[in-house]
């Protein structure tokens, strides 16, 4: 034959390293399996864990979670697409979430969003080209007494003004893992 036929039977799809590593699996199995009567209930914690590890939830990871929790991949997608906090496409290293609900809006949360968008020259929902910042507006963060508020990764910032938020953003370390919640100081050592 003048052409080379593709040998499909013996071709192996190059499998990269599994996203749901043994370490993650062990963590899920040790922490969450004893808590619930079935494995499906561990889905939300597992998705949280994968998102924490990779900053988003890659489709391949969802498939691996499905395999690990013994449910159909469609069921994982069903759940993951429902919740807003799961990012099914990559996001920036720092996720800036500005609250836009009523308490914050009447306390000028719009100014915060506009300021951040102008500062990084992006629109709401976009990521900067260097993959460092993503800005979104979301509904109530549950800190209306200190409006306006914004959440940068895990850390809530309250009583913000554009200047205060600007100062916070300029202080952010290069590695988001170094960015810790300053309010967490555990008194006792357990």
């Amino acid at each position: 034959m003048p052409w080379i036929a593709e040998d499909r039977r013996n071709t192996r799809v190059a499998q990269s390293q599994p996203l749901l590593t043994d370490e993650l699996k062990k963590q899920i199995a040790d922490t969450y399996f004893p808590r619930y009567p079935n494995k499906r209930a561990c889905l939300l914690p597992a998705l949280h864990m994968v998102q924490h590890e990779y900053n988003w939830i890659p489709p391949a990871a969802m498939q691996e979670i499905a395999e690990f929790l013994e449910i159909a991949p469609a069921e994982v997608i069903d759940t993951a697409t429902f919740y807003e906090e799961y990012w099914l496409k990559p996001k920036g290293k720092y996720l800036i979430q500005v609250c836009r609900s009523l308490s914050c809006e009447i306390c000028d949360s719009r100014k915060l969003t506009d300021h951040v968008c102008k500062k990084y020259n992006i629109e709401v929902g976009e990521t900067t080209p260097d993959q460092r910042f993503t800005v979104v507006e979301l509904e109530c963060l549950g800190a209306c007494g200190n409006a306006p508020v914004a959440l940068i990764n895990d850390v809530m910032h309250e009583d913000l003004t554009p200047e205060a938020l600007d100062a916070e953003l300029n202080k952010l370390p290069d590695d988001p893992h170094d960015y810790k919640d300053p309010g967490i100081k555990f008194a006792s050592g357990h």
Partner: protein
Amino acid sequence: MAFPEPVLTKRIPLNPADRKKVWYNDYVATGGYKQLRAALDMSGQDIIKTVTDSGLRGRGGAGFSAGQKWSFIPKEKKTTHYLAVNADESEPGTFKDRHLMEWDPHQMLEGIAIACLATQCDIAYVFIRGEFHHGTKVVEQAIKEAYHHGIFGNNVMGTGKKIDCYVHRGAGAYICGEETGMLEAIEGKRGWPRNKPPFPAIAGVFGRPTVINNVETLCCVPHIMERGPAWFKTMGTPSSPGPKLYGMSGHLNRPGVYEHELGITLQQSIDMAGGMKGGAFKGAICGGISMGVLAQHQLDVKLDFDDVRFRGGCLGLGTAGMIVMNEHTNMVRALRNCVRFYAHESCGQCTPCREGSAWMKKILDRIVDGYGKARDLEMLLELEKTMGSMPGTTICGLADGTAWATRTFINKYYDEFAAACPEETTKRVSLPISRGNREVATPMGSNTR
């Protein structure tokens, strides 16, 4: 009707600078976990009776009697019972549970333990919303401490009883604050509310009997056990006794969480938070936006579970999360914000809610942009009548929130809305498809992602 000293916030000073997290040792030193010890010697029925006698009504919004709710759980235990603690506080204006969890988590844990004893629950899940990263860490740490000191585990305070308590994090969906939606989320599914019956007390999470309580309700329980139902009834009004955390936000001089008895007037609550900022009073959301709005002439409405409904014309007290607005607030924009919230958070299960709220948002967008017509108001009022569990077209009460917000806003500020929607308009009417690249409206509603 006397409110001498704080109850729920007795370990949380009013001044933010004085606040310190209450960990196990501080909690025990101030009399904590004594009521759990006492409850361990009581029968479940006695605990339920005490709580029923106190008249404690659920603080999560609906105001259902907590003791009665517990009594629905089968007395004879045939299978595992669960307690689901609703800490998915996502109603705009509500931030009291966060206050309790972040500063005094053990108070809640004691309430959880007592509730578990009363209803023979084996496992308690504390469902905390995903955005409360800080609160989650604090509660997890407190639970770890409690396990270490034998509050939870296989041997509760040395009596051989078994209670487990775990945190279950949500992932950013308002609907998971609805009780059956929360159960679905605990089961690892999308948070779609379930049809009732069967009620959660019979078949809740994992098909087992489940008690669902709000954080603040559970925080009240140790105090009722300590000082008795008669003391609890000295506070508040006859139909809604007890202390309440008021989450005051908006145009106020000192916004924040304040504790007072139920049944104070709206004016009192505003004074408590330092009075109005930037102008005279115009309106107040009376308990999370789904409850509707109280207008200028309703400053004397008593904030309890009944008066807000009967005299205030709102859906109820809800969570007592007040958003106070001053005279410079544009009520059309305020309503647009409320409806946008519901359009965004509707879970999409029932058509009247999914489509209704999305279209209401589009109509309000149009009015805010200056293209309003008189017919739009009629349309909004017609739409709100058709959606919700009260007209019986949806499974849960989310659409009722949309309806009551729209109804109360338009009725109480009709002039303002009418001015924005003139009978004859010279402006060309068009549907804004793209709003300055900021929010792209799609047939399914707007999405910021």
